[in-house]
Structure formats: structure tokens, C-alpha cells
């Protein structure tokens, strides 16, 4: 194992993970960069069940190109085909030489996307916790997938169902509800021959 980071969840459980895994979170990365004597980062707003799911995601993504990276920008050392051969080579040269049409990279990213899609097909209850955790911990790829998962959950469900699924409070006053109806009255069709 390389250098590890210790994370403490909101309910007091300790997770020890490789730097590469933990640093998927920009927040953890910047907290670790600060002078942290005991190498333990507390995450009070994420409990252990969610944190372990988040770390599962980060583990998968730690040594893969981000699903957002354009293929040409994938450094050679992350390409499955060039695995190992880039060691020792000058990094900038091998990065720029890496082919935009590298089939191995394309396949690797597609596989990762498939894995991500399966990962977010979870209990609805979990999706919004993942979304909050991704936002709080600033994990780009997880945010991307959780947002898509949340949007799917909202799509095609009526307001009561969505509120139940996401544990939302209808915090409108009756006056506010009237205002909203008026605000969105333009949705009604004036004329459709």
C-alpha cells in the first residue's frame, strides 16, 4: 500500500485508504495538504454507510481516466495498453504522444461508465445521500453520476412521490403555492390547432 489517509465518518468509524483513492475528493486533498499532525481527517457530515459507498466509487476511479477527460488528454500511464511501459518515460512526452483514438483507453472509459451506471442504480434513499456526499466532498465524477441518478429519480414521478422519495418537506405557505401556479401559468397552451 502506498501512503494512506485515515478518514473518520460522522458516526465515528475509521477508514484507512490509499491517497489516490481519498484524493478523488478535492476537499480531502486540500485538508490533507494542510499540516495535519495526526493524519486523520474527520468527516462529520458523512456517516459510515455512505462513506464506504463513496470510497468504493473512489477506489474504482482512482487509477482510471475521469469519464470527463477527452481521450487525447489521457496520460499514457493511465492507459491499460501502455500499462507499465510509461514508467520512467518523460511524462509530458508520453502524454502528448498518446493517441486520441487509442482503443484501449476508449474501452476502459466505456467500461467505467457502465460500472458507474450500475453503481447509481441503487436505492433511491442512497442516491440523495451520495449526492450530498459528492457535493460536500467535492468528488467530480461521483457528483456527475449522482446528479444523473437524482434527475432520473425525479423524472416521471409526481410531486408527492418525489417528496416521499427524497424526504422533502413541502414548506410552502398557501399563498406561495398560489404564487407558483401563477408563475408557471405560461405552461398552459394558448392555442394548438
Amino acid at each position, binding site marked *: 500500500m502506498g501512503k494512506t489517509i485515515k478518514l473518520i465518518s*460522522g*458516526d465515528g468509524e475509521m477508514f484507512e485508504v490509499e491517497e489516490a483513492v481519498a484524493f478523488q475528493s478535492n476537499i480531502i486533498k486540500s485538508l490533507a495538504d494542510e499540516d495535519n499532525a495526526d493524519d486523520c481527517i474527520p468527516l*462529520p*457530515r*458523512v*456517516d459510515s*454507510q455512505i462513506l464506504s459507498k463513496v470510497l468504493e466509487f473512489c477506489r474504482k476511479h482512482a487509477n482510471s481516466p475521469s469519464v470527463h477527460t477527452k481521450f487525447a488528454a489521457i496520460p499514457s500511464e493511465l492507459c491499460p495498453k501502455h500499462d507499465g511501459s510509461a514508467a520512467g518515460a518523460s511524462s509530458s512526452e508520453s502524454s502528448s504522444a498518446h493517441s486520441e483514438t487509442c482503443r484501449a483507453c476508449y474501452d476502459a472509459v466505456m467500461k467505467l461508465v457502465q460500472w458507474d451506471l450500475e453503481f447509481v442504480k441503487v436505492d433511491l*434513499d442512497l442516491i*440523495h*445521500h451520495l*449526492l*450530498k456526499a459528492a*457535493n460536500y466532498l467535492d468528488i467530480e465524477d461521483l*457528483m456527475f453520476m449522482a*446528479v*444523473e441518478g*437524482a*434527475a432520473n429519480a*425525479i*423524472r416521471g414521478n409526481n*410531486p408527492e412521490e*418525489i*417528496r416521499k422519495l*427524497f*424526504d*422533502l*418537506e*413541502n*414548506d*410552502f405557505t398557501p399563498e*406561495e*403555492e398560489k404564487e*407558483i401556479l401563477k*408563475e*408557471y401559468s*405560461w*405552461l398552459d397552451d*394558448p*392555442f*394548438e*390547432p
Partner: protein
Amino acid sequence: MGSWISSIVRAEHAASGGGLGAGLGDLPESCIAEVLLHLDPLEVCRAARLSRAFRGAASAGVVWETKLPKNYAYLMEKAMDETARARLCKKEIYARLCRPNPFDGGAKEFWLEKNRGGICMSISSKALLITGISDKRYWTFHTTEESRFKSVAYLRQTWWFEVVGEVDFCFPAGTYSVFFRLHLGLPSKRFGFRICNSEHIHGWDKKPVKFQLSTSNGQKVLSKCSLSEPGSWINYRVGDFVVDKCDVPTRLKFSLTQIDCTHTKGGICIDSVFIFPKGFMQGKVFNTSAIL
């Protein structure tokens, strides 16, 4: 009574470590806005009714910016004057563009298709060049609720049937279909019932009519169709054209002709020409056959 209590409970919950049970209501508006970016305009509007946080996020400019056509500034100029434009937020711009917006003297309108944000257009018979239109023996205008413009051109009889139109507009990039909205027979209302006067319908079964469509950048469609089904409004699909750039105006010319002088034809209403984003259709659609 519970809403302010539960928000206090949630705040305590969050401070003490979050945990299960606290829902999406705790998400900052910016995060909800990220989710809304993935939803269609109508879904965003529905989501606004969920909670205050959702309502706030649903009004965010960043959400509506992605739903508006790229050339919405041009469309706003066409639709409203400067003072009206200045005070609208992105969501209001979207709503406003979804209304029918008259232009070119009012005989043409454009509007945003609510759910996908594509541009739709209708060109009234009054904006079309109809050969012989001023001769009341052949052509008259009739008032009807069945037209967006409340008026259709009705032909009793002619040898030379020719309807031509054009429009000059910056369409957002994409593919569009052009339709002529036609009706064999003259519809009217008597004692609350819809009736169709078919006494002048003749000649359409002899030869098909020809449709033409061309753009300023050289796209051309030539097609034909035999007009049929008296008593119904039919949208005859002429063909498609493609727009690459939204900042370049497309001059579109279209026509409908039947000028075979061996027979007369008549008993037809011309309502308008429609332009819709490809795939979006309204009413009864008949396809025409391309003449190669």
C-alpha cells in the same frame, strides 16, 4: 406547524453528523440546480413546486441558460422591445419566447416548443403570395377559430393554383420540417355543430399538387402529393432543411402549385405554412413524395 421545527431538527442533525433520514432538502440550491440541468423545461417547472429550495433552484439563470436556444438574444429582439427585454430573467425569457411572437408585420409568428425549446413558426395565408387572391370570384378570406390567425384563404375555382411564400430568419442550428396546412372543403359552425361545405371541391384527384422548398444556402426539395380527405385539416409535409449556424439568417422559399391548365380545381382552404423542428408534429400529417 412542523416545517420550522423540522428545519431546526435538520440543522441539528447536520451539525451532529448528518446521518440517514435527512433528505435532499438539505442540499444547497446550487446542487439542486445541477440536478435540474439534467431535466427538461417542463420537468424543471414541476420540480419548482416541490419545496422552497427547489423553487429557488428552478429560477436560477444557469438552469434556463442551457434550455434557451443559442440565439435567444436575436429571438428576444424579434419578440419584444428594449424596455421589455431589459427586466426579464432567463426563466422569464424562456416563458416569453414560448408564447406566439408575431413578426414581419404580424402575419407570421414564432414560438419556442415548451418541452424541447425548439423554434416553431407559422406563416399565415395573408403572408403568402396567392395568384389571383384579389379576384373575389376565385378567392375569399374566411374567419374561423380553426386557424391561429383566425383567417383562412378559400378557393372556389381556378386553373392556375399557385401559393408562394418566404421567410428570412435566424433559426437555431438543427433540422426543420416545412408543412402546408390545408383543408378540402370550407369548415363552418351551424347551431354549434361543425359542418363542411364541400360543394366546390373538385380537380384534386386528376393530378397531384407540387411542393417546393429551397434555402439561401442551396438546399432544395421538390415533391408532390394528391390532396385528399375532405373535412379535415392536414399538414402536408413538404420536406426538411438543415441549419448549421444560428447567427446566419436562412432565407426560406416554399410553394404549392397545381398549374396544369387542362382542368380546374377548387374547394380548398389554405391556412398557413408551419415550420417545426424535425420530429415535432402536430395534427394530421401527410407526407409528400419526393420528385427526384
